[in-house]
């Protein structure tokens, strides 16, 4: 039920002048927003910019959030738009296989297994960049961010039927970008490893 949505309550409190409520919203959503941006843009630097821009836009436009969609869905929409804007502005091929070194502190991998997982994530992220943007957006929302077809349609402002056909096309394009059977075996063998996996 929407009434029970804690985000809706936080939005209401922020609109009543409680800045801390916005802080809580940011804390609750920053990880999803950042990872969506990272998967859309393929670069940590761009993901940082898009995340910041998405939250600043949310700050400006929160008044227009009417609570008809869940805040999460709305925030996904704002983030996808920030990524589209950023990618349009940059208009350059994303650097594949970039490991985002030198762009700020980040935790070291905890173990060899974990490091393999990170490496594979980077392969998948790089392959995602070869998927046409409209397909990529649907693919990430449905298969990486776990939105329903309906919420993805809402977030992208397209019909549900369009989401389903783009999702299929996007999946096929990603599988082709991932390429070799060896890479596929690695992907199949690894499986979910810990709680940080979406």
């Amino acid at each position: 039920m929407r009434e029970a949505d804690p985000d809706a309550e936080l939005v209401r409190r922020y609109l009543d002048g409680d800045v801390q409520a916005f802080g809580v919203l940011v804390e609750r959503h920053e990880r999803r927003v950042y990872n969506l941006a990272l998967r859309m843009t393929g670069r940590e630097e761009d993901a940082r910019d898009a995340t910041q821009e998405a939250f600043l836009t949310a700050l400006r436009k929160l008044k227009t959030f009417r609570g008809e969609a869940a805040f999460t869905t709305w925030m996904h929409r704002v983030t996808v738009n920030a990524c589209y804007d950023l990618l349009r502005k940059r208009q350059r091929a994303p650097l594949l296989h970039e490991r985002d070194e030198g762009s700020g502190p980040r935790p070291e991998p905890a173990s060899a297994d974990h490091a393999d997982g990170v490496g594979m994530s980077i392969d998948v992220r790089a392959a995602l960049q070869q998927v046409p943007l409209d397909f990529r957006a649907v693919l990430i929302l449905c298969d990486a961010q776990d939105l329903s077809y309906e919420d993805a349609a809402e977030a992208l402002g397209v019909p549900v039927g369009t989401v389903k056909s783009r999702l299929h096309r996007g999946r096929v394009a990603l599988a082709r970008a991932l390429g070799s059977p060896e890479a596929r075996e690695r992907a199949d063998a690894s499986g979910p490893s810990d709680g940080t996996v979406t």
Partner: protein
Amino acid sequence: MTHPEDLLAEFVDGTLADDQRAVVDAHLATCARCREEVEAAARAVSALAVLHEEPVPLGVTGPVMAAAEGSERRRAARRRPAWDRFQWAGGLAAAAILVLVAAVLLPRVTGRSANDEAAEGGSERAPTAEAGDAALGASAEPLQLEVLDRVLDDDDLKRLADDAAEAVPAVPEREASAALEPANAAISCLTDSGITVGGRDMLVRAIRAQYLGTPAYVGVFHESRAAGEPPEKILLWVVSSTDCSILTIVSKSI
């Protein structure tokens, strides 16, 4: 042959109704292309399911919160009733008296005359005249911009905040290598970015340096609950010196 493309995503997800699944099954029995696509789509789903979730790097959402606080302050200032503004003005008057007392006393310590101060000061203070005096703390020395020829990172900002917290309420020591300039541009840039210089937030240092490679002004503030009260927090505002956008904010309780 017509391919049931609109059904294939749901076929892979296993969410098709029985009758639609039967349609796809029948098609796949005769269409190698769709069979291959369904296999590829399933591989893509597995690959995405193990996509690692990255932690959010430091400093990404700080500027957002700074902007939220800045916009709330502007809203609050518009909402503030006349009586509050009157009281706030009273606080400023008290601060101005403190500044005056300091102006008389300080030259004895520093060996500089009050006239020297006045000649150098004036234009180098905050854009809002009264707030400017309060912003400079209980010192009659005009605030000068410290120009550092190096790149600051988040650790440097933490150190600056720590220094400022220890130096309350005295003026913190400047880096020996810093060149000094009038601070007008830095103060107006900080103001543009949304912080009200003076009142609750007394500007104790203004620094020009690079922050993570971006030319920036760093404003070090003592923040109190209300104008004239002792500071409770150190606030570092880091803004781009080219467009005055907020790069990050650091706050530390005293």
